[in-house]
């Protein structure tokens, strides 16, 4: 997919149109629910990866606690829906705002730490939130969780009869995430984020307000992650603390980006396109009896990438494209953010 980025402008635009068109007609051609379900998961986790990548990839603030925002988004919209009858379309934005507000104190605490200590602190925040929601029996259903009321096909309440509708929502969210990343990457913010990721002290010496830029990107990242949370519970019609604040979400967000290529626009998309179908197909073909096999394959992929492509798979695609079309890979932005 990263091939879009290289070659002359015209070729790039052409590729972009072809891929966009293909993604739009995909659910019309492939109608098997199982296949569409995989597509939706790919788009959703790619989106979460994109949200994570803004902070974890560009600014190298390795968060392993993005489930906190995923869960807050999920719970906010669900509480608004069930307790107050408010449409998840409003709830999804409310969830985003709640996540942003939560990211301020969490960021203020966690950003005091650097490197692995930051990662550990973020894990703790997601776990603490999960424990809190396990205790909130009165308004958040405690450990049992709850199913969402099935209203049939009611688009205004973000419920649809056709699975394809969810596919298009997830696709739109991913497009939004990529558009935001694209804009940030090419603006001063992108340069500041990479500078902070490379060397925070050196960045501060040339006027980069590192605490502020980290806070701001954390706000954006938390907001986007919360959107994914709302979408996910609307999709599976169920919520409980273990699902909403699942450590898996945090790990997946980081993993798809690392495998695809952190700090690159398409990295999380490439990573998810590889990992998510692999895991889904293994799970369905092996059944629940061989739970370990799926994780083993996952681990093998991860080890292979770290050994042979530590900068992520995105580079592999650009290299291959360059070899096939015999065009020297040109540096897209001065930041060479994909280096």
């Amino acid at each position, binding site marked *: 997919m990263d091939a879009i980025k290289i070659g002359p402008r015209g070729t790039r635009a052409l590729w972009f149109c072809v891929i966009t068109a293909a993604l739009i007609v995909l659910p019309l051609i492939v109608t098997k629910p199982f296949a569409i379900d995989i597509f939706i998961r790919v788009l959703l986790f790619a989106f979460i990866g994109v949200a994570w990548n803004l902070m974890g990839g560009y600014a190298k603030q390795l968060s392993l606690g993005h489930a906190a925002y995923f869960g807050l988004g999920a719970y906010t919209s669900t509480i608004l829906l069930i307790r107050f009858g408010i449409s998840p379309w409003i709830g999804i934005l409310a969830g985003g705002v709640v996540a942003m507000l939560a990211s301020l104190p969490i960021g203020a605490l966690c950003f005091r730490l650097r490197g692995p200590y930051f990662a550990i602190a973020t894990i703790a925040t997601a776990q603490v939130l999960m424990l809190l929601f396990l205790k909130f029996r009165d308004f958040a259903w405690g450990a049992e969780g709850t199913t969402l009321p099935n209203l049939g096909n009611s688009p205004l309440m973000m419920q649809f009869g056709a699975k394809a509708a969810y596919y298009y929502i997830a696709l739109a969210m991913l497009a939004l995430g990529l558009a935001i990343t694209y804009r940030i990457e*090419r*603006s*001063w913010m992108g*340069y*500041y984020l*990479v*500078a902070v990721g*490379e*060397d925070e*002290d*050196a*960045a*501060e*010496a*040339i*006027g*980069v*307000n*590192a605490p502020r830029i980290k806070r701001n990107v954390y706000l954006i990242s938390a907001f986007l992650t919360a959107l994914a949370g709302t979408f996910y519970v609307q999709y599976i019609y169920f919520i409980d603390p273990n699902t909403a604040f699942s450590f898996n979400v945090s790990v997946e967000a980081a993993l798809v980006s690392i495998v695809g290529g952190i*700090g690159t626009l398409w990295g999380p998309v490439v990573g998810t396109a590889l990992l998510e179908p692999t895991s889904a197909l293994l799970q369905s073909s092996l059944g629940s009896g061989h739970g370990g096999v799926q994780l083993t394959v996952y681990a093998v992929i991860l080890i292979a990438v770290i050994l042979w492509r530590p900068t992520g798979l995105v580079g592999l695609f650009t290299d291959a494209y360059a070899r096939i079309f015999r065009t020297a890979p040109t*540096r897209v*932005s*001065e*930041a*060479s*953010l994909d*280096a």
Partner: protein
Amino acid sequence: MPELLVVRNLSKRFGGLRAVQDLSFSVGEGETVALIGPNGAGKTTSFNLITGYHRADAGSIRAFGRELVGMRPYDACALGLARTFQVGRPFGKMTVLANVMTGAFLRDKSPRGARTRAREAIEFVGLSAKEQTLASDLTTIDERRLEMARALATEPRLLLLDEVMAGLNPTEINQAVALVGQLSKRGLTIVIVEHVMRAIMAVASRIVVLDHGQKIAEGNPQDIVANKDVIRAYLGTGYAQEAPAGV
């Protein structure tokens, strides 16, 4: 000559170590002042105190009509104070141009404007040919040039150079000396920490000598190389005989 930087009774301890003790000096506008002294004398610590990387235990640092003690590095930079690091710290994943643009964004948030400013700074330090080179691929002298260009792109009035000549060969030192001279001609006020005496003698209008965190001498270069305390603490007796011929 109006004073741009005034350091008064500055002190900093790290545990039992008195890194800087009761240090006072001032730098006039347009002046180039060198800070010299043996390793561990407190030169880099002084820089870190002035630029906000360490917080002083006591004393005051005034520049641009503001108190700098307690100010964060990026705020000091926004006021017009830029520095380079003793060990080059380029953003390795970025190209030279992107590195310098990051500095230029302080004064101009548009990529187009920042690029123009960055190119000026890159041209000034003579790095234009390597604009698209990744910073991690630069040689030592070019890394120093990049550090300077990045600092210059923030449009400082006061520039603190921390051992920009360390590790350079004699030809490169001459180039670096010329560069510092040009910066000074542009009207920049410079404080330079340096071990290469030949370079100091060429660029500094005044020298402050530190030893064990204290100022042991201050004066123009000719007086400093003849100063007995300085020779004993830092230059070594050999220098006293050589210096007059060399200068």
